[in-house]
């Protein structure tokens, strides 16, 4: 059941991404992108990444897409403008780059394994484990709940979390200064 749901939501996300990239109107693109965000959020739920799934809906489908739609409607592009930007630019380059990426990445994923490194006690090399095992670890300790993620963020990654606040402050200042006509 979970496996079938994964394929359903995965196909939804992929189809929505394709539609978002090919739509002429930016508003339609943005709406299809919201569908893709929800499809991915459902897949995060299936992978027991609850916190990431909720943040995906709140931040991406909520905040970021509202910002996008706000700017799209602020610019208020006419139909003739949309027509003029509808034709693809360098289609061959894009498709070839994407195909090369798919082939290279597909080979990498197909032959992937996880090298555990030398044994800490004996120093002997250990055999590489399959990166995508049939059996995965489960349990309340490694579920992506807010409690577990929060413990990691405010423990091991506290410095990165604090630096993030500086990044957001810089982004706020940058956005305000860029959109102001005059700085006085």
């Amino acid at each position: 059941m979970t496996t079938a749901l994964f394929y359903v939501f995965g196909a939804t996300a992929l189809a929505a991404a394709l539609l978002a990239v090919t739509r002429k109107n930016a508003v339609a693109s943005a709406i299809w992108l919201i569908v893709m965000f929800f499809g991915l959020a459902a897949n995060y739920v299936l992978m027991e990444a609850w916190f990431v799934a909720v943040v995906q809906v709140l931040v991406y489908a909520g905040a970021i897409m509202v910002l996008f739609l706000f700017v799209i409607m602020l610019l208020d592009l006419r139909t003739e403008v949309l027509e003029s930007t509808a034709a693809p630019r360098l289609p061959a380059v894009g498709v070839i780059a994407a195909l090369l990426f798919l082939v290279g990445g597909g080979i990498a994923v197909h032959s992937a394994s996880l090298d555990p490194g030398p044994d800490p006690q004996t120093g002997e090399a250990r055999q590489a484990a399959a990166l995508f095992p049939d059996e995965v670890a489960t349990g309340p300790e490694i579920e992506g709940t807010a409690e577990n993620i929060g413990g990691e963020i405010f423990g091991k990654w506290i410095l990165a979390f604090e630096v993030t606040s500086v990044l957001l402050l810089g982004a706020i200042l940058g956005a305000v200064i860029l959109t102001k006509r005059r700085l006085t």
Partner: protein
Amino acid sequence: MNLLLAATTAPSPVPLQHALYLALALFAVGLVGVTCRRNILIVLLSVEIMLNSANLALVTFSRATGNLDGQVFVFFAMVVAAAEVAVGLAIVIAVYRLRQSTDIDDADELAEVDYGPVAPLALEGEDHHHHDDHGHDDHGHGEDTEAAHAPAPVSAADDAGEE
């Protein structure tokens, strides 16, 4: 790895390798969007698709190895994506104000002589001496009143909309 030892194992409900193939496909779609689309807004949307595919790959690896660090990294990636969107859309608005266009090929030059009907971003002091010659009534009232009259190319409606 300590976490992994504490937990029990069970068959993976989600085919993790296929999840990574899905991430690859999504990234390729985003790549096509970034290279092929002309509308700068859809280019930014395609960048979001690529960021999301990377997030999916991180969550997949987190699930495969039983390690939460991947999901913490997704959290940070989302914060960076939010900052990127805010600055990116501010640049889109600034470019649109300058060129009256969302076609990225119209923004392929760093400098352009003709700024169109709207003035570019002006720093303090640039306009002062330029407008001194026009001779306002309140010429002797000091710097602040003079500055209030300085922006000639910006219409009053634009100012009201901004503030």
